[in-house]
């Protein structure tokens, strides 16, 4: 069991290293030059050279890479090209908002998705089942920005129920601030859950249907256990495993979705920071953001792995 955990950990570190390396070189393969964006209009070649050396872009690319890895190991993410502040400061001010948004979307998807998937499987062909199948497939085809704009137009602009943009009204204090927070969170959260929920419930339903046909379920039923117990204790535990894995994998999509969601909803998270930094070619910020995202996804997968180990005795050796 320890060996299993150790090998997972090694793989996690390897994955992060690969992600860091790929990000680093991809950015430098871009045909565009970050120094060109700093000054609009007149810029002398001397100024451009000075900027290149300030950014460290005048060194050979391998040397830049080694320097960067060296910094990274010490926990230093570098300084933003454009904002002249440490990247870690920028990320730390944005990360809580992304954690709140993506985290609550994740939890909400599980909380609604599990009962929905189970109900669909148990009542096959029923109303819930048909709804889950329909939304599961359509949601896969939804494009987050379109959903977001639609929600904003209907619930923000036309009905005026929700504020447009931002994460909180900074002038509120105490309980009112929490209310304002939830008020601002509602629409972006809803759009993320809407896109995630269908596919998740659908996967769970498929697994559940399969598991419900297994011999041990039949035998459990024949032992006279209640329907409820058979479904929730015996079947779900096995059906939820692959669905859990899926959720771990989908965390990447969730965060990718957050880039678009946060941009359209003007939500101040890491996703929007990425969007802005891409436009400004702020390499250190992009690298830092991708390191954080890679670590988050890898950690989540590590957790799901360990969790499945707890749930599935077959992995324990």
């Amino acid at each position, binding site marked *: 069991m320890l060996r299993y955990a150790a090998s997972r950990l090694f793989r996690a570190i390897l994955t992060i290293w690969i992600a860091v390396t790929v990000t680093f070189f991809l950015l430098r393969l871009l*045909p*565009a030059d970050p120094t*060109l*964006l*700093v*000054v*609009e*209009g*007149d*810029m*002398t*070649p001397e*100024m451009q050279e*000075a900027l290149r050396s300030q950014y460290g872009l005048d060194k050979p690319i391998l040397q830049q890479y080694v320097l960067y890895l060296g910094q990274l190991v010490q926990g230093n993410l570098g300084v933003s090209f*454009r904002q*002249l*502040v440490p990247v870690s*400061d*920028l990320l*730390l*001010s944005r990360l*809580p*908002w992304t*954690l*709140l948004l993506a*985290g*609550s979307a994740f*939890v909400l998807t*599980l*909380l609604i998705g599990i009962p929905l998937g189970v109900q669909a499987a148990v009542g096959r062909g029923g109303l819930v089942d048909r709804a889950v199948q329909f939304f599961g497939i359509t949601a896969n085809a939804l494009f987050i*920005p379109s959903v977001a704009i639609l929600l904003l*137009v209907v619930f*923000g*602009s036309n009905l005026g129920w929700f*504020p*447009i*943009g*931002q*994460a*909180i009204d*900074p*002038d509120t204090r105490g309980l009112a601030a*929490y209310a304002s*927070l939830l008020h601002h969170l509602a629409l972006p959260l809803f759009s993320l859950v809407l896109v995630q929920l269908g596919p998740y419930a659908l996967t769970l339903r498929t697994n559940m249907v399969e598991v419900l046909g297994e011999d041990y379920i039949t035998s459990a039923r024949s032992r006279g256990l209640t329907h409820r117990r058979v479904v*929730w*204790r015996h079947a*779900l*535990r096995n059906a*939820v495993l692959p669905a859990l894995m899926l959720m771990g994998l989908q965390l990447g999509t969730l965060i990718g979705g957050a880039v678009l969601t946060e*941009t*359209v*909803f*003007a939500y*101040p998270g890491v996703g929007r920071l990425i969007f*802005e930094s891409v*436009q*400004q*070619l702020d390499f250190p910020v992009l690298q830092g953001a991708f390191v954080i995202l890679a670590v988050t996804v890898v950690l989540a997968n590590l957790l799901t792995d360990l*969790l499945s180990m707890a*749930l599935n005795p077959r992995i324990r050796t």
Partner: protein
Amino acid sequence: MKGTIGRIRRTGAALAVATLVAVTGCSLNEGGGESTGGSGGSDEQAGGATLRIGTTTDMENFNPLQSLSKTDSWILNATYPTLLRIDGNAQKVPELAEEYTTEADGTVVVFHLRDDFEWSDGTPVTAKDVAFTAQAIMDHQLGNVAAKLTWVTGIEVRDDHTVAFTLSEPYAPFAEGVGFWMRIVPEHIFSKAGDVSQFANDSDWVGAGAYILESATKGQRYVLKANENYPYAPEGGPAVETVEYVVYPDVNTMILALRNGDIDLMGTPVPVSAVASLESDENIAIETVGSLGFAHLTYNVQHPVLADQTVRQALSMVVDTESIIETILQGDGERMVGPISPIFADYDNSDLEPYPFDPAGARALLEGAGYTDGDGDGILDDLTFEMVCDQSNANLTRVAEVVRDDAAEAGIQIDLACIERNTFLARTRGGEYDIDLSQWGVFDNPMDQLRSTYLSSNPGGINYNLVADPELDALVNDAAVTADPEQFVEKIKGIDAYVHDQALLTPLYVENFRFAYRGDRFTGFDPSPSDLLGMVTGYSLAQVTPVD
């Protein structure tokens, strides 16, 4: 294993709650996110109105000596005063300087400052601040202002309100360029910062403009407070007490926020496609503002075929500017001829004859010059060019298609490369194009424009023609040292005509910008041309009054 699922569920819920609380806890304390200035706090001021402005991106850099992004400039221009400002007719008018004079045949330029500007910490604004600012920019070669100060050999503070710049040679628009672009910073703050090029200036701002930055919450909003001492505010001080910039990266969301009343003014111009729907909203007013730049086709004369003046003239004849303005800009633009925008009324060039839109005539012109269609495909041999444009400019990508189709009629094949903005910039800077379809942002005076775009030494790095024409160099250099105003205007007009005849570029249009605001709440903006200035200059905001 009994109850594992239940445990997981409970753990999940607990985690969710914990995350929520932790996150909100820290953001409600605004730990690290917000930096505030010394005075005031964010308590609601009694009586003063709050105007909320939508911006598209966070501030990048709070150092006014460095920062050059458009959205940063909106906030920094309000906080830090300039010597001159540009009024609604694109004329330079007094701001911190009440006037400027020249001495010694134009080699000494003297700014005379007002005596009633004051930094927000109570220190008066003096000539020393101006001298310090210019010296710091020259020492560290900061931003685009460094290029405006190229000629300076000495700065002399004559008294508290008089500062003189000695130039290596006379340069007619020196005072206008420096006066408009150089944001003056307080010496007593910036000199303590050590290396000003590395000074972040990200808290406790001390300004002397109409509105002074007070707090910044990255990712969310920037709050500015009215400067009660701003001399150009109406009697009794500015009616808008607080200006808040709120970040909306997506312009569609910003439009919804305006309709919804979450903001009062869009700092960004309204896209042509959204004008009609906003006009129909009775709460929303729209102001039309001119531009200090223009859209153009610029020909790379290093290309062996484009080096031929006849080819460039023929290309100018396949561009139907009138119908482009009518259809693509929906009439919201002005036609121009030659490289100097009609907004500079002093350099009126209406006697220049525009190239007619005449693809058949263009073809005849080319055939007359010896270009033939050897393989009979309808395209004249050698007349195939690649035109690059910035994909994010919706108007220009449509112009590209129109020009391509009209050019084909004249036997010219244009291949379009409308590409991602950053790639586009890299290619134009690298000279990797035959034709550059793009839009100049802000030229505050024609002389600077002609120097930057046509001198073979390419001092501003934007000679996108890559032209190296000794005759043109001589014309530009001669005009630059002409001190007599009348002669100066004549020489500029001469260059205008020369470039027009050479057809180095085909100007397309001077775009009008449309700014939308809540007319049911505020009125009285005094806009200046361009989307750099627009509705949001400190001067304009100080004139605004709430609608009762």
